[in-house]
């Protein structure tokens, strides 16, 4: 069963269209990334899926339930980390957790206390449970906000910019937590981010959105492949010379050859990596080339993202 399914989800604020006919689905246990620059419509999409904003057009179901008709039940089964931690700074960490746990239906006091302890322990905040949140660092607040989002063990979790504004160490610890969450808890996670590193490391699939519209959806590998017309082989050699370059250029398989003498590398564009790589290597060896490494060059998600978001045509 699909955890999240949207069809033509649209949100307009007056004349401004924040989300424009977005359709996607997230499977059970999947980490799905909504990737896009600030103002792309990611947060508005999450707000609609969390039943905080009503869509202007289109529809969405969460675990089969319609976000407009079953909004209370949908809210019950999702956990949300909002763009801001949204924590009550005058309350302690424990008081914040108590309030949200009770609000999400954890009525039994013993079970509630046990769940809160489990989460605060997991996030390393148990010793600071009696401190007011105002005294917490940004990273601690973010951890507490994630703990709050999953206090009722929701099957579906929305995480809006979970590592925004964090130092690299805190960002890594949050990424590790999300990773653990998806693997151990089998939660379906919708991750909104403009940090490519997060998407690359955490998401099974991503959708790139720009100006409210979907640009492309797929796995990270699929997206990076989409912006590359032909495979590129990079060969690093000890002592690159013209004889080796000519030997490769004479091959029918090489569409384009670029040599970098100072780096000792040759990048060769081919039609098909699997069938071309052995022949290219054979020719280099025959030309007395001493190979250090042969790699398939893939563009990073960052390159794919920039190319796709900036509206450059996608090469097929």
């Amino acid at each position: 069963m699909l955890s999240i399914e949207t069809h033509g989800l649209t949100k307009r604020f007056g004349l401004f269209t924040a989300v424009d006919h977005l359709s996607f689905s997230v499977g059970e246990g999947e980490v799905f990334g909504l990737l896009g620059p600030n103002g792309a419509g990611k947060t508005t999409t999450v707000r609609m899926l969390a039943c905080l904003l009503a869509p202007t057009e289109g529809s969405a179901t969460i675990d089969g339930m319609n976000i407009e008709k079953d909004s209370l039940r949908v809210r019950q089964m999702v956990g949300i980390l909002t763009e801001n931690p949204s924590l009550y700074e005058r309350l302690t960490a424990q008081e914040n957790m108590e309030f949200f746990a009770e609000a999400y239906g954890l009525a039994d006091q013993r079970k509630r206390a046990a769940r809160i302890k489990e989460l605060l322990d997991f996030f390393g905040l148990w010793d600071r449970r009696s401190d007011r949140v105002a005294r917490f660092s940004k990273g601690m607040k973010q951890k507490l906000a994630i703990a709050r989002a999953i206090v009722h063990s929701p099957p579906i979790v929305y995480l809006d910019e979970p590592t925004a504004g964090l130092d690299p160490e805190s960002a890594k610890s949050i990424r590790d937590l999300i990773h653990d969450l998806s693997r151990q808890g089998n939660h379906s996670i919708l991750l909104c981010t403009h940090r490519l590193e997060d998407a690359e490391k955490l998401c099974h699939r991503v959708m790139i959105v720009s100006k409210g519209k979907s640009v492309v959806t797929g796995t990270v590998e699929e997206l990076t492949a989409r912006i590359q017309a032909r495979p590129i082989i990079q060969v690093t050699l000890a002592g690159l010379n013209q004889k080796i370059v000519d030997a490769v250029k004479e091959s029918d398989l090489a569409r384009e050859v670029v040599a970098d003498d100072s780096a000792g590398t040759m990048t060769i564009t081919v039609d098909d990596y699997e069938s071309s790589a052995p022949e290219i290597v054979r020719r280099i060896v025959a030309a007395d080339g001493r190979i250090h490494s042969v790699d398939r060059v893939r563009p990073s998600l960052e390159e794919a993202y920039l190319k796709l978001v900036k509206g450059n045509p996608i090469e097929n």
Partner: protein
Amino acid sequence: MALLVFRKDWREIRRNWQVILPIIVMPIAISVLLPSFIILIPGGGQQSSPEGVAALLESLPAELRAELAGLNQQAVIIYIFLVYLLAPFFLIIPLLASTVIAADSFAGEKERRTIEALLAIPISDSELFLGKVLVSFVPSMIVTWSSFAIYTAVVDVLSFSIFNGRAILPNLVWTLFIFGLAPLVALTSIGLTVTISARVKGFREAQQISAILLVPILGLFFGQLSGAVFLGPVIIGLLAGGFALVAAIVFQIGVRLFQRDEILARLA
């Protein structure tokens, strides 16, 4: 669920000096300092000339003049100020307390950016609204009724010998003011603050605009002072009806504006 929101908000408010300070200082000033000053400090009110007192009595309604018959000059002055004139002024307490708390509870959540997580919880708009209204109404009534009890005690104790052992408070007018009119003033102010909070981003703006309700209260005070209005049971009943009507209207608007979509659309 509404009680859960009430408990959470009350816990927060108790730790917020921007809210607690005005709802403690102002009632103390009105219920303790003002009567003490008028009764105890020479010149605080009872040192007027006989001509001045006569002129003041002339401007008062006949019903009140009848109540004052037989009292000495000091007792007349104290009675006019502390029993007659200050009754409408006392309505400032429920107005101030409810405005400050409601502004913090409604607009403050937006300003502190805690509103989104709150709106995400599985609770209906009406339960959420009720919780917020309760946390504004209950403490403001506790403050008002406590202030009234303190004021009554201070006035009766300090004026004990002046009125020959007679307790001048509470009387019917004050009882109607405190238990009939004050809750309606608080509800009107909460309704107005909720409506304004939906339109503004910060609690200070909400608080400042809601202060508009001071106008009718000060109007009553100065109306009494000039002799234009005599606040007897009938007028108080009419005022209660007027406040109830305004409260119903502003609440209706407030409830309509207090919807998740409306609140977040303005933050988006």
